[in-house]
């Protein structure tokens, strides 16, 4: 029963992780930029939700209505001001630039909001079914993840701009011939990526305390998931998230709790060696 409970829990967390990674993979797919500041945008969203809650009493779930568009705008500003200039530069340049952005965001948050951890006390009743208990907040997070994944799926499959994003990801030169402006698609993808990160931040506020420099943990998590799933593959990101979520939780049954985080990385290294482009990635190197 415990195992079943852990699997359910892992699935729920995995969905959220997967959505977190979706933002990263979208950006990679379109412009081949690994956004090291991804996790810092999560923290930006989390702090926005925190203050909305503390100052205006806005429920964190409601505050997504603010953090998502805010993240979208922020992403577009960051893209136009900075990232745009390294899209065609060697990989290392974009890594380095986004690292700089990450440092800048986290240190600004640190300066403005002090290093104290912040948390919100909002709880949802837990869900019981078939002898399995799922914490309410986790269930809400999973529900959020399902909604975002669904919305994103609808966006990517039903709208012109969503299809354009997929088209650029798959074959940017062909996309150009369709009349798609790759620059506009990059901007859009970056905006959506940051919007996702920032709305994940709102949900994270339901689950744990955050602090200004905590972004790197989310970036790392998203990295692992994205590579596990295959860079640039949205479905792979969700799958990777679920794998990591379940493995993380189930492994704690059999391993010392403090050692479980190693499992994700070890799986990743093995996957990379056996299948260099990730579970869902294209074949070849």
């Amino acid at each position: 029963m415990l195992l079943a409970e852990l699997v359910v829990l892992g699935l729920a967390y995995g969905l959220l992780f997967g959505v977190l990674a979706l933002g990263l993979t979208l950006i990679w797919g379109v412009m081949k930029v690994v956004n090291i500041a991804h996790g810092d945008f999560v923290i930006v969203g989390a702090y926005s939700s925190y203050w909305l809650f503390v100052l205006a009493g806005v429920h964190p779930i409601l505050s997504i209505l603010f953090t998502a568009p805010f993240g979208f705008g922020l992403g577009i500003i960051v893209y136009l001001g900075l990232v745009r200039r390294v899209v065609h530069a060697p990989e290392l340049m974009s890594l380095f630039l986004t690292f700089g952005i990450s440092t800048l965001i986290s240190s600004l948050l640190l300066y403005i909001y002090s290093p104290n951890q912040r948390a919100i006390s909002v709880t949802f009743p837990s869900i019981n079914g078939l002898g399995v208990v799922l914490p309410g907040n986790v269930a809400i997070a999973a529900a959020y993840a399902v909604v975002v994944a669904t919305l994103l799926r609808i966006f990517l499959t039903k709208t012109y701009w969503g299809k354009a994003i997929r088209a650029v990801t798959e074959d940017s030169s062909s996309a150009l011939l369709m009349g798609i402006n790759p620059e506009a698609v990059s901007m859009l993808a970056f905006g959506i990526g940051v919007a996702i990160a920032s709305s994940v931040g709102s949900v994270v506020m339901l689950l744990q305390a955050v602090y200004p420099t905590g972004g790197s943990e989310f970036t790392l998590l998203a990295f692992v998931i994205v590579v596990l799933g295959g860079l640039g593959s949205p479905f792979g990101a969700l799958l990777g998230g679920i794998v990591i979520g379940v493995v993380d939780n189930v492994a704690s049954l059999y391993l010392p709790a403090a050692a479980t985080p190693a499992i994700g990385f070890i799986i990743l290294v093995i996957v990379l060696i056996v299948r260099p482009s990730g579970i869902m990635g294209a074949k070849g190197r």
Partner: protein
Amino acid sequence: MTEPLLEVSRLAVNYGAVPVLWDISLTVNRGELVVLLGSNGAGKTTSLRSVQGVLKPKSGKVAFNSKDITALAANKVTAIGLSLVPEGRGLFATMTVEENLQLGAFSKRARKRFGENLSSVYELFPILKERKGQRAGSLSGGEQQMLAIGRGLMSDPEMLMLDEPSLGLAPIVVSKVFKVLEGLKDRGLTILLVEQNVEVSLAIADRGYLLENGKIAFEGTPDQFRANESLREAYLGL
């Protein structure tokens, strides 16, 4: 009716420091089907890609509908009615047939006539309608080529450029594709065709250009080509 739709004058293109096209001038009149012949590596694909704006020419001028489009980005060229069906088809393999067609109509102008164009493409290629929910990558080679052409048509072009539509197709399929091209020409679409398959393309073309080593080596009607040794020399050296 000899109103020029596409005019390319003295086009020169480099890949990095490597000159690929030296001095290309050609004209395609409205309603014409012109074929650009030449052996591999002669610069045919480069010509099309520079006309479309994917490659930036070093010098020269491209005019479409009397408008200078030399410096226009490729996506904007598509939007004003000149569409390129690339070599190797360039389909979005993981997307469905219908999605590929929708992307073909990405520009605002094309989106307005989406329904109309979609039904005429389905009419032209009934097989695509049958397979509309299937992933483009799962189609056969011939079906893929039809999808590529259909997708090109979805941008509601005044002129279509096709790069090696017969590549990798069985002869029977090649002839099907060329029948379609002939039909499109009959409907008044202007076509610039790049093709290795000389016989087949001369059979449907109004005029042709022979590209050899980055230069126009010969120009003429299909009959003039057949009467001339230049083709054989360009292709086989002897």
